[in-house]
């Protein structure tokens, strides 16, 4: 039996999500924005696994879902990096506030 309550894990995930959101909204480097999004996805995974142990009708399904999330996150990181490199070749910048061609 575990003596750590469910809310402790949820608060950890909430803190991670908030830090990822702050990074994604304030950082100007596109690589850091991508990795902040990964941090937010990690927080979601932590919630899924926590509810797999403590939730209503707890079962292994939460862990299976977190595996699917990890797979999709890896695919997202690869495609994001490819877009970033293609953009760098054309615009020679990685700052998100200089990627404003659609605004002009």
């Amino acid at each position: 039996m575990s003596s750590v309550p469910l809310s402790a894990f949820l608060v950890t995930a909430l803190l991670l999500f908030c830090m990822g959101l702050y990074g994604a909204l304030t950082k100007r480097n596109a690589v850091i924005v991508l990795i902040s999004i990964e941090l937010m996805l990690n927080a979601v995974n932590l919630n899924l696994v926590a509810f797999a142990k403590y939730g209503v009708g707890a079962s292994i399904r939460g862990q299976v879902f977190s595996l699917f999330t990890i797979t999709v996150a890896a695919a997202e990181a690869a495609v994001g990096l490819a877009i970033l490199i293609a953009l760098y070749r054309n615009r020679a910048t990685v700052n998100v506030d200089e990627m404003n061609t659609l605004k002009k």
Partner: protein
Amino acid sequence: MTGELLVFIILFLVTITGGLLMLNLTKVIHMVMALVLTFLGIAGLYIMLSAEFVAVVQILIYSGAITIIMLFGIMLTKHTEAEPKTGWAKKGVVFTGIVLFFLIMFKGIRTISLGPQAETLHENNTEQIGIMLFTDYVIPFELVSVVLLVALVGAVVLAKKDEEDEKEGEQS
């Protein structure tokens, strides 16, 4: 204080320290390295939640693959030495909004309790996941393989040098 609580507090501090370092360091490489600390801490939390297989996958995929792919992204693009600063006004607005979000969510989950916890997750954890993947979730499992293939091909096509564009650029 039980030993389990102590382990949780250590892992919590490791995880949060990695995130805070990521937000406060100035060099991009150091930020990614700080994130490795967070990913390892989360893997430890998974083991505490009796999810050994997910913990190993977390270390392989996040601490290994995603960190390396981000480092490749940093090395293949040119960076100024330090991250350019964002304006204080924008930072303040974003920070206030996130603190409000945190307080509201915290009020909601502070005392949550959803009944008894699962007791059999740690017994043959990988076997349970495998059985579930190949019975109930076999269609999503196959679809995920298609997603990975499309992402692989898409990444290669996107990052490939566009030869036609280059020829046009030379002529003009």
